[in-house]
Each structure stands twice: as structure tokens, then as C-alpha cells.
């Protein structure tokens, strides 16, 4: 019986070690400007939602959002090491910073994500965390961050991650 307990304990410990942290995570980022067309155009000219051709890969992640026009404003792909922050610029104003934390039992990659925003206060330019979030990103799924102002629309950032 003692031997049995030892073996089951060893198996359980084996399960824990199976959840090892990935050394590196490949992060894919697509930045989108989401806008709504003027009401008269919505009614008569272009009743359907419009997506840039380059957004086909993330269309399923953003098509439910309450906008009718989606335009790609940037994208990036980076290999991020666990517990190290990787920065991907979108434009002069925004940048996405991703820190992989761990991988959970369901294969999801836990990430800390910041969207940095550079703003001018008086004569100074400062940086603030427009969004700072921690979450688990499932394989093949997306993390969608949005609502930030971008010209006459809103910024939507779509992230996906794959571990090595």
C-alpha cells in the first residue's frame, strides 16, 4: 500500500512538472481602427460591415463589435521570453507590451498586457497605461483590447499567442 501511495504521489508530481513554463511565446498583434460610417452611408450605400483584406485572419474576433468599418493600422509578431516584457509599437501614440507569465493546465498562456499611451500634458510628454490586464489566452483564441481613441475612431488590438 505504501508503495502504491508513493507511485501515485510521483505520478501527481509528474503532472505538475508537465505544466512547465514555456521558454518563449510567439505573440501576434494586429491593430485595427474601428469606425462607424455616417448614418446616410450606412442606410443606402454600404449596409454590410467593411473589413480590410489584411484583417481576414482576425475578422472573427472583431466582427461582433459595434462598428461597421475596420481598417488595419499596424501589426507585429514577436517572440517573447517568459517573464520578460516585449514591446510592439502601433503608432506614435500607442504601443503594446506583452509579458508571458506561464502556461496553465489547459494549454492557455497567461500574459500580462499593457497598452502604453503617450500623451502631452502641457509642455511634457508622458506615458500612461491606457490598459493593463492579466489573462489566460487559449490556443487559437484571441485577446481583444479596445475602446481607446484613435483619430476619428477607436483602437482595437487583437492578440494571439503560441508557445514553442
Amino acid at each position: 500500500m505504501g508503495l502504491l501511495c508513493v507511485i501515485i504521489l510521483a505520478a501527481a508530481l509528474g503532472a505538475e512538472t508537465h505544466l512547465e513554463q514555456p521558454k518563449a511565446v510567439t505573440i501576434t498583434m494586429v491593430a485595427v481602427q474601428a469606425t462607424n460610417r455616417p448614418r446616410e452611408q450606412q442606410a443606402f450605400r454600404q449596409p454590410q460591415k467593411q473589413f480590410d483584406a489584411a484583417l481576414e485572419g482576425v475578422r472573427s474576433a472583431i466582427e461582433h463589435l459595434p462598428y461597421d468599418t475596420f481598417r488595419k493600422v499596424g501589426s507585429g509578431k514577436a517572440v517573447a521570453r517568459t517573464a520578460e516584457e516585449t514591446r510592439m509599437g502601433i503608432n506614435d501614440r500607442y504601443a503594446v507590451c506583452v509579458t508571458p507569465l506561464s502556461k496553465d493546465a489547459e494549454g492557455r498562456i497567461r500574459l500580462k498586457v499593457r497598452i502604453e499611451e503617450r500623451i502631452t500634458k502641457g509642455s511634457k510628454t508622458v506615458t500612461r497605461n491606457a490598459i493593463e490586464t492579466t489573462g489566460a489566452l487559449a490556443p487559437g483564441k484571441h485577446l481583444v483590447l479596445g475602446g481607446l481613441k484613435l483619430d476619428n475612431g477607436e483602437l482595437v488590438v487583437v492578440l494571439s499567442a503560441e508557445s514553442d
Partner: protein
Amino acid sequence: MNRCRWEKRVERWFDGESTETDAVNRHLGECPSCRGYVAQLTQLRDYARVIGRCEGIEDARFPIYMAGIRERIQAPRQWYGGLWAMASLAAAALIIGFSTLIVLTGHPSKAKATSEIESVVTEIEGATVDAYSGNHGDAVVWVRFPDGEM
């Protein structure tokens, strides 16, 4: 080899069932086949005597004989039996352990896994930020500004 028709009579004489010794002896003098047969029977009888002799145990040696039996009965069991039992137990435990492992952990189900938000904050003054589940297992974080502010 041809068998002699006297063979049965010779056999009965050899076994002491017949009294025709003179006739058999005369025939044996003339028949090499029956002489060979008698030689075989003689040899067979000698072997049977040797086998049939029982080994006796003398009274003086009997205690030693019994002590040997007792020693064999009381000797500890061979270790090999225990070794096999332990190996079987270990194999069974391994099977149970791995089965438990598979049941408890399972394989990561990529199709069923969904993205989740643990925490979210914003440093934008006056703005709030929400997290919710989007389409197809995606997670959505959305910053909301007070009405009218751009």
C-alpha cells in the same frame, strides 16, 4: 527375426510353469533363436530383481533422516516468490497511478479552452474598463469613456 514355434513352451519352462525340462534343453541345444530368447529373459529377470530391491532405513539412521525432512519443511521460503509479488504490485500501482493521472489532468482540450481575463485596470482618468467573453472563446477588454468625451 524369425520366431521359433517353441518360444511359448520355452517361456513357460523358464517361468517354472512347465516340467518338460529335457525336451526344452534338447531344443535349446539345436535352436539358436530360443537360446537367445532365454538369454534375454534371464537378463530381464536380473534387472527386475535389482529394481525390486527396497532401500531400507536402519533404525540408527532414522532420526537423521527425519531431521532432514524437518529441516526442509521449516526452511524459509525462496525470495523469488516475494520478488515476483512485489513486481506485480509495482506494475499494478503504476497502471493505477497513470490512470489516475490521465483522469485528473486529462489532455489539454484546445477546442474547449477559452481565453479569460483575470484583472484589468486603466490609468486614464474618468475612464472605466470592462472585461467580457467575446465570440469563439476570445476575451475582450474594453475601455469606456464618460459620455461625450473623446
